[in-house]
């Protein structure tokens, strides 16, 4: 495994920099795929299309994510049989049916736990979790945070449409306060989660956010997420055009997006606006504030910093109306991976106790013989 990128000073512009200090494609396997075999035949996007008819509503953001993932998987160079998609329940969780790999569409909220059992027993598999905002943050919130803190080698894709799609439009734990839905005719009363803040609080080692419609950005984030060894958490803003249409429109429309989006690039000053005329800097009280883009104290993004303070402060910039929403990689640090440590313990146990001998085990303790 390579070291933390911040130490080698080799920072190139853009997201590629996130990979620069780490095992990158081309010169060896990315750390996240270190234990996964490499395929001998080159695959194309079409090789990852299953024979199942895709049944999302026309116009659903899930299509774009599916296409981006299918377009990205070939570049991993991993044989299809060594890739597994595990999902929970929701529109988003239908995803595995459409990808020609191994897959499991499980039960509501439990995909991270199922994937944990699979990943810790099968390090030769690249395991993806596909989940929704309800699936991951309501019913499955517990499993999500624990998978993150354990740092299981998983790539978790959270399709956040800020609504319950499959059950036809109730508010979700990411819906904005006061949201009017079928179950909240007078407006929702509960403060939403910020999934990035939550993941950071849960000790996640890789946290990123991207948008369904920006295929290039989505692909770059996926690339870094898979390269990361450990739990990678990727929040994908996804449009549900039936129950919560245009929820992220201000981040997508050419007229507004430059003022609303902050594109995080490791090693680069954090600036935004059409002409990068705005930036962010620290306040005396330890929060971030907007300043002029050429302010000398504009913060330089460091996704590899061992301390999550900057990543967390960045996650808090986003306003309820989505103004100042950062996308990109908030955090990407190395920490020992659960299954690697477990494999180590097994090795140590064998070294110390010898390979298990059942007859000796059964006869351990006090025995006596009757003739």
């Amino acid at each position, binding site marked *: 495994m390579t070291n933390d990128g911040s130490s080698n000073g080799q920072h190139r512009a853009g997201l590629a920099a996130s990979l620069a200090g780490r095992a990158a494609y081309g010169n060896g396997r990315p750390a996240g795929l270190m234990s996964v075999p490499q395929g001998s035949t080159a695959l194309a996007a079409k090789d990852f299309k299953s024979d199942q008819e895709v049944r999302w509503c026309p116009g659903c953001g899930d299509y774009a994510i599916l296409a981006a993932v299918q377009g990205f998987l070939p570049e991993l160079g991993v044989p299809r*049989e060594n890739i597994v998609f*595990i999902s929970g329940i929701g529109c988003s969780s239908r995803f595995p049916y459409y990808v020609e790999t*191994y897959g499991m569409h499980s*039960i509501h909220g439990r995909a991270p*736990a199922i994937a*944990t059992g699979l990943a*810790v027993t099968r390090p030769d598999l690249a395991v993806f979790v596909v989940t929704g905002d309800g699936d991951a943050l309501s019913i499955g919130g517990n*499993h999500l945070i624990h998978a993150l803190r354990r740092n299981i080698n998983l790539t978790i894709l959270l399709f956040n449409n800020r609504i319950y799609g499959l059950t036809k439009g109730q508010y979700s734990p990411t819906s904005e306060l006061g949201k009017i839905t079928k179950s909240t005719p007078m407006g929702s009363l509960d403060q939403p989660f910020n999934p990035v803040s939550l993941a950071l609080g849960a000790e996640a080692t890789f946290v990123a956010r991207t948008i369904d419609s920006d295929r290039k950005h989505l692909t770059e984030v996926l690339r870094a997420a898979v390269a990361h060894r450990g739990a990678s958490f990727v929040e994908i803003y996804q449009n549900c055009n039936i129950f919560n249409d245009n929820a992220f429109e201000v981040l997508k429309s050419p007229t507004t997006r430059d003022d609303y989006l902050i594109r995080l690039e490791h090693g680069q000053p954090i600036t935004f606006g059409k002409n990068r005329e705005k930036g962010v800097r620290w306040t005396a009280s330890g929060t971030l504030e907007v300043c002029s883009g050429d302010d000398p104290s504009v913060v330089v993004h460091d996704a590899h910093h061992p301390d999550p303070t900057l990543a967390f402060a960045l996650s808090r910039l986003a306003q309820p109306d989505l103004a100042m929403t950062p996308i990109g990689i908030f955090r990407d640090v190395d920490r020992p991976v659960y299954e690697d440590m477990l494999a180590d313990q097994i090795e140590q146990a064998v070294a110390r106790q010898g390979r298990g001998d059942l007859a000796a085990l059964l006869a351990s303790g*006090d025995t006596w*013989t009757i003739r």
Partner: protein
Amino acid sequence: MPTKEVRQLDRVIIRLAGDSGDGMQLTGDRFTSETAEFGNDLSTLPNFPAEIRAPAGTLPGVSSFQLHFADHDIMTPGDAPNVLVAMNPAALKANLADLPRGAEIIVNSDEFTPRAWQRVGYSSNPLEDGSLADYRVTAVPLTSMTVEALKDFDISKKDAERAKNMFALGLLSWMYHRPIESTIAFLEKKFAKNPEIAKANIAAFRAGYHFGETTEVFAVSYEVKPAALQPGTYRNISGNLALAYGLIAASQATGLPLFLGSYPITPASDILHELAKHKNFGVRTFQAEDEIAGVTAAIGASFGGSLGVTTTSGPGVALKSEAIGLAVMLELPLVICDIQRGGPSTGLPTKTEQADLLQAMFGRNGEAPVAIVAPRSPSDCFAMAIEAARIATKYRTPVFLLSDGYLANGSEPWLLPDVSALPDLRVDFATEPNHVADDGSRQFWPYVRDPETLARAWALPGTPGLEHRIGGLEKSDGSGAISYDPENHDRMVRLRQAKIDGIARDIPPLEVEDPDGNAELLVLGWGSTYGPIGAACRRVRARGLPVAQAHLRYLNPFPANTGEVVRRYRKVLIPEMNLGQLALLIRAKYLVDAISYDRVRGLPFKAAELADVITATIESIQE
């Protein structure tokens, strides 16, 4: 030294009782080991409070350990102790009601201070007020004698006092002619890091032994000859330990690495603790964030080709239900060990009960049949763990193993099995496509079934060309594609049921023990009631009344001959530690008017009680 009388006994039931902090479980374990080594048959019953350390000297804080040992084969830890060792007034008060008149009581007189006996509600000192006149009471100042014996050791007074349980153990070891070497070796090992404490405990143990030898207080010692057990090598084993070993054996027999996903819960946690020690067998234990994650991680591991197991107790099963339904739908192997305890809700966490049978049977949404097995004794947990894994892997199904608190913590001698004779349970994974499509292409269909077992084809991730998706949605017979077709759903529901029902062809028939051959009453049981029912039947037969006994170790499906067996007798009596759950199933399935006898006291049945119920039932038939 005057030679003392040695009296021969055929069996003894001894109960050690004290504060939770007095080390009664350890003392009991040691006495059991000495007894096992001596060659008696034995059975044990630990009984401890739910609180880790209730206030010292109070009734809720009393912890006890009962051991029954004999020169013949026995089936239960015994109904009523012949001997009670009470380390304080609370222990005396909490246990006195269980003693028959004439029982022997040894008390630690140092603890019978007015404050201590008042604290548990005595208005006068029971050792002096004549209230124990019906018993043979020996008051021994165990604490002060221990402290005196250890006065030359470089240990605190508290540590010296603590060793009083070893003094008591030494005394008992003398009294029953137990071999003492293994206890000395045990203490050396246990306190290896603290040699002074080790020496002190050994000295206390020896002091107790010598006190017995020399004192005039005890005029007699007792001898219980070794039992004529089958030749072979034995060890003493508790149900939870046997279950853990059985799972490791199953992993070896199936060739699948063992994965345990579990969340701590009494009385199941010891299985997690035990398996966590055996990573050198390739065992992976995962302490999950909750029981749902425990079972779902096990399902994920099964999907990847491990032997996925989850261990829990009743409240945990309730949380796992949805995931077990998923495993039914996925048709993946899964072993769910439910170590039952008193319910509902948190109930009686440290007490035994068998009230989860219907939860295991029906506790899921939809028609979601699973196989159920139930060990009948502590050592049987080993065999039934292997059976659970055999059925799970062969039929690709969840299998419940229903143990309980009594089996989990109780122990008995176990004739070590020959590991080379373990069955070969290797799984035939799919490696090739199994279906030819209309266009002639070869495909893998995950729901193509073995015509005999109805088990579906199981291909592991990593197998080239067999990529497929499974999930909780109903699937098309054969292809496994999502299907909402009404006829297909009806067929799949029946196929899943038929698969479970078909296991009846693959399990041993229900055996009946009816030595007289002319019984009119069958006593039918399941799980941990085997010992008490068996002991009761022996007593009834000894009274000259014929009675038949059968015990179900497979509860879903029932053995194929179960209907024939229950219909063969004029009456069927089903004792259960629930409100008649097996009786409900037997009545529903076989239309037999079974009589239910049920008690839910958190304690195993007593043989005497069951013998009376059986006798009364036989008499009612004859009237």
